[in-house]
């Protein structure tokens, strides 16, 4: 257990996640616990952007004497990740020989990941699976903490499940953990949190882990589609100038903002590279002046190959 070593050099715990998840709360529980166990503690975080969905991290160092408020790179004894991609981001911080990696497989996909609007594009979320990582670190555990907490009847106790998992790595008595946790949670949820804490311990100790080769639990599943090739060069955007009255509807409505009115007040495709072929302008042109087509689309029309599973395309009914 790590705590047996804390007298000789500090123990370093790095807690990471996404703004709003409770990184700071989890850190505070640990810091308070270490304090009550008689250690010097430094807890360092950078907030400000924390609640705006950005990447959030908190360093907790405890021992007989702690100097630097931040954990030197490659010296984190435990990396507790409350979100999968954030765990991967901070992996280089982990002590390579002994470091323990505890990760929630929960995925929080940021709006940035949905920027590629090309035909068949996947969310730009990291594709590394837990089983590809856990064997390559000294100690690796992946838990679906939200699911574990929901199984106990309160999904909001997910962070306490993670604290339970963390407790197995550090070795303070479970009762001491629970005493601190109970002061941080609403009094009516103390029992739920106690169960959640023990659930986290059980998951780690019993090796009661989810199927790691499965893709992590995902709010937005990313079933890849057949057409991986960008269709840009094949998008054909046509307008019948004599039908266009320059109403500007298409220019305003284009999600990629790639249309403009030319000097004659006729709509033109000003930024062909940005066009994803979504056909919104075609649908909404009051004058029926616009036609959008691309290679993949014509293939679909000819019935040679559908770019997406037909069953998942109710839009074709429109």
């Amino acid at each position: 257990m790590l705590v047996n070593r804390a007298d000789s050099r500090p123990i370093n715990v790095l807690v990471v996640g996404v703004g709003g998840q409770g990184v700071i709360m989890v850190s505070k529980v640990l810091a308070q616990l270490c304090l009550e166990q008689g250690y010097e503690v430094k807890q360092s975080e950078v907030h400000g952007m924390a609640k705006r969905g950005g990447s959030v991290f908190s360093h907790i160092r405890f021992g007989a004497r702690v100097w630097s408020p931040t954990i030197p790179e490659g010296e984190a004894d435990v990396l507790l990740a409350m979100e999968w991609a954030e765990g991967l981001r901070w992996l280089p911080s982990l002590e390579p020989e002994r470091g323990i990696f505890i990760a929630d497989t929960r995925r929080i996909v940021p709006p940035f990941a949905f920027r590629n609007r090309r035909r068949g594009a996947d969310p730009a979320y990291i594709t590394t699976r837990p089983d590809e990582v856990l064997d390559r670190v000294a100690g690796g555990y992946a838990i679906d903490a939200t699911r574990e907490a929901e199984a106990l009847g309160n999904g909001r106790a997910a962070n306490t499940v993670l604290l339970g998992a963390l407790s197995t790595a550090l070795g303070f008595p479970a009762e001491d953990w629970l005493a601190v946790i109970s002061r941080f949670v609403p009094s009516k949820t103390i029992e739920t949190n106690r169960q959640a804490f023990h659930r986290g311990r059980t998951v780690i100790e019993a090796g009661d882990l989810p199927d790691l080769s499965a893709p992590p639990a995902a709010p937005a599943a990313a079933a890849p589609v057949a057409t991986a090739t960008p269709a840009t060069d094949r998008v054909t955007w046509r307008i019948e100038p004599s039908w266009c009255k320059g109403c500007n509807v298409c220019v305003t409505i284009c999600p990629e903002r790639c249309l403009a009115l030319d000097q004659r007040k006729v709509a033109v495709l000003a930024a062909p590279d940005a066009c994803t072929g979504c056909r919104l302008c075609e649908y909404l042109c009051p004058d029926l002046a616009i036609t959008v087509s691309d290679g993949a689309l014509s293939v679909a029309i000819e019935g040679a190959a559908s770019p997406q599973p037909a069953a998942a395309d109710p839009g074709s009914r429109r």
Partner: protein
Amino acid sequence: MSTRRRGLPSRRETDQDDGQRPRVTRWRRPAHEGRAGGNVEHNTTDTDTVILAGRAAAATEDRTIDDRSDDRSADDVVVRPVSRTADRTVRPLTGNEAIARGAWEAGVRVAAAYPGTPSTEILEALATYPADDVHAQWSTNEKVALDVAIGASFSGVRALCAMKHVGLNVAADALMSMTYIGVNGGLVLAVCDDPGIHSSQNEQDSRLVARLGNIPCLEPTDAGEARAFMHLAFELSERFDTPVIVRATTRLSHTRSLVEIGERHEVAPKPFVEDRRKNVMIPGHARARHPLLLEREAAVAARLAEPDLARIDEGERTVGVITVGLPYAYVKEVLPTARVLKLAASYPLPEDRIAAFCRSVERVVVVEELEPVIEDTVRRLGFAVEGKAVVPRVGELSPERLRHGLAEIGVLGPVTRPAPVVEAAPLVRPPVLCAGCPHTTSYFALRALGARVAGDIGCYTLATIEPLRAIDTCVSMGSSIANAVGMAKAGQETRPIVATIGDSTFLHAGIPPLIDAVYNSTDITVMILDNQITAMTGGQDHPGTGRTLRGEPAPKVDFEALVRSTGVAWVRQIDPYDVGGLFRTLREAIAHRGVSVVIANRPCVLDPVKIKGPPLEVREDDCIACQSCMNLGCPAIGWSDGWHDGHHKVRIDAESCIGCTICAQVCVAGCIVPTKTAAH
């Protein structure tokens, strides 16, 4: 044209509907509210308490902790006894809380600040101390705050002014004169730099400003020293007749560690000193004061040379390290065996003591964050020194950066890095505007209208990144309006020119440029994004919110009347959740010749009240995957498993959606609707 399509309820319609208006589910009382003197936390004589997430902390961190497990105010819970030996009481405090604690203990009577990360929590923490002890206030900007503190000093009481590094620039005018005048009551500035630019627009090193103004600049290493240095700063200020800067950095301000605390020492107010030659800076008086600054510099340096403030940690003499502030902790972490000269201040430097130290070691290394302030002095003293060759002039210092630097110059062995476990590049995850943020539509509309947008400082600066991409410039607090004036006067712009500025930023530095725009007959539109709070820094009050720092009622600025009084003829208020109305209003404003002002008025979804209404959902059968709603950049909207024409359909995360209806208004397919299950 409006982007709202037929079949969709407008916001007003849903209001009249059955309770679709986002409703308040939780009211977090400001940490400073309802707090009389002698409360548990600060009454250290009666109770021994340690508070981890106590009142001072609650003012700031409470907002970042998880809502899922924090329905109870941290005030109520985490109060527990701490072991106390003899007269020693310790408490875990952040650097900012320790600065506030130190100031309170040192008997500060007046404190003022404008919020700015990472300094904000100093005044918030100070406001948790009894109002009878200290008057703490938000001021409209940093210069006003400093002038308030200066006035208190004139009146003979100890005064504190807190600000971030760029705030020091705003206050610099007053400061550069005040340094000539000196103090009556002690005057201390707590200035927080932001190495690494965690939440700022630049990375300036305020120590150079201290040097410019001949102002002593103390640099604590940790929270404990931050508290102690506040006592020292007030003593130096009064003893040497000078304002004093206590410089923190983001890392120090936001690191919590154990601090040994003490009692408050009341300092008897001094009478006002009627000395016009000292207090009135006209050329004749100032000329006489300038030489005194140089005498003062020498006298302070002599004090700072004493062993308690220029401490030597004995060690091996092959390498001697000179350091100051937080970098001292990194030195002790990475090079624990070296002989170290730890300075309490970076200005003025105790040159004789530095020279003696340099002679005592074989090789001199200076470890300091950002600019080579100490290194240049050591070099001027004639010693070979390695400083910025070891640690860079840019970015935040860290143990690993120091270790790499020391390895490069051969003081430490080479650093080996293991092969990365995962090869993939980390996920791009910038901060984003919140779900339901009222700024979203303002920028969505400006982008759609093809405006040239001069931006300003605040959350809304995030609208410059994908997918809103709506802000073209952002310089400093209040710059937007005058930048827009310049663009208009340059006569090169074919697009409509719009300046966007938040309510707090407008009051901070937006009024003079608005007057300038009117005075010089400029054809621009100014958009005041009034979310009724200083949101970026975590929800602080300002003169437009009707509350003070301590949560007491205050007169409220009437923005429309204020704008009209500057001579603006065209002013309109609009609810930014009314997307069609916003488009129409902006189009009119742009068409108006002369200065037009649009006040987009809708409270922040986080502060002071967290807003959460019934979420919306996507009727997936009707979604045509056009991604129009995705262009809002709302973090609640993502891709679903469904496809249309090779493109992802969208889904709305019910947990994060607050039901603002903006996306429903821009949806062309009319497929975003209220959740049936959320009728409770």
